[in-house]
């Protein structure tokens, strides 16, 4: 069989499974009173870490579909956040080689810039486009928590993928370099 296809399929399944677990954890009916705390956007942290670490094992369409599903399930306005996230993933994917060579702190710094840009863009667009207001304080808090949770997500993925980086010159089933 095509090794590339199996490889991609396996990791997409893993990604979807992760995303579903995160979504269901959000949905467990424990927070029925208004809270002043907010959970970090773990799905975002994991997706960005994934895009940085193993961009070849992540299909952009799957990312888009999972974020749209998250929008639908979590009562968010559908479409805006997935569009922004896809652009962010693309930016990180393009730099993934350099980021992996630069060491973890440089990677974290880069991803932080991307996350902050994402949240700020989303906040500005929300203020302009949404019919209702979202609490800016909570959104900023969520941004901060997401920045902090990124190293955990990245660490977990490194454990999962193994620390061994894809060697230069490795080719996949169709002879394309990975």
């Amino acid at each position: 069989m095509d090794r590339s296809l199996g490889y991609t399929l396996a990791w997409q399944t893993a990604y979807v499974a992760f995303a579903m677990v995160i979504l269901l954890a959000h949905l467990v009916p424990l927070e029925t009173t208004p809270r002043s705390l907010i959970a970090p956007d773990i799905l975002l942290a994991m997706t960005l870490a994934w895009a940085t670490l193993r961009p070849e094992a992540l299909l952009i369409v799957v990312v888009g579909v999972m974020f749209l599903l998250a929008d639908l399930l979590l009562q968010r306005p559908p479409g805006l956040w997935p569009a922004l996230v896809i652009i962010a993933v693309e930016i990180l994917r393009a730099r993934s080689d350099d980021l992996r060579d630069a060491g973890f702190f440089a990677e974290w710094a880069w991803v932080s810039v991307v996350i902050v840009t994402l949240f700020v863009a989303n906040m500005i667009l929300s203020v302009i486009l949404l019919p209702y207001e979202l609490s800016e304080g909570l959104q900023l808090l969520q941004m901060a928590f997401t920045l902090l949770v990124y190293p955990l997500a990245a660490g977990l993925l490194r454990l999962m993928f193994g620390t061994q980086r894809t060697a230069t010159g490795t080719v996949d089933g169709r002879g394309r370099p990975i």
Partner: protein
Amino acid sequence: MAKDRSKTEDYTAPVRRLLIGVLVFVFLLIFLVWRIDSPRVERLRTEVTDRLVPSFSWAMAPVTGLAHVASDFRSYQRIYDQNQELKRELQQMKAWKEAALQLEQENARLLDLNRVRLDPKFTHVTGVVLADSGTPFRQSVLLNVGARDGIQDGWATMDGIGLVGRISGVGRETSRVILLTDAASRVPIVVQPSGQRALLSGDNTARPPLELIEDADQVRPGDRVFSSGDGDVFPAGILVGEVARGPDRRLRVRLAADYERLEFLRVIRARPAEEIRDPGTLIEPPRAAFGPVAPQQPASLLQGADADG
């Protein structure tokens, strides 16, 4: 090899960029459609939730259960304080019980005098909370009853004690309850004993404020708040909570329903509001309360109305 690699990238990059562009466009289009024609996309949302969440309840139920056990365990640690508090409350309750018994007798006498028949159509469907909104920006819960059980949009939902919210979004097996605390929730209420009408408007805090009060001076902290039934949104007379003064000096409502633990909710079946379509065959009720009676009406009709009242 490096040359090979760049060649491949040159080949795939434009295709990739096109794919990204198309994806971003599609998502923004979805957002635009949602912004313009929200009900349609919200129905899609309800549909997706309806398909997904019930099928995952096997995974969520144990987690919910465990978390409740944990919170129960935490509450054991405060058991002494609670005991003291309960004793104090019991003392107060004894006094209240006396008052309640007297009031009950008085109420029974008055009802008897008025020959009031309480509405027999007041029935309910009980549902279990499957999921919350999943984000602190919105306050809603998902129930495991839906169109299959005859649930309709707009029906009132309460726990055993007080009003919780209204149904908004009905799937086949699930329905979403917008809680009173949600920023989009507006419920007409009446404050007793002063009888002041106002609007309870959620603002994403635990104690939603009262708005559009007729005369705020007549409303005091501690007054009871009920649904007023104005605008045929809810049946009248469901307990909502009691008035409290917030730290910002606004009049807010301490909700009677136990929002910490929403597990089983009652959906109140609302009667469709009766409409008078055909004035020819139906004698309308007297309009005396709204102004002078029109002189053109036949005398027999007026007499009939007077005899009724």
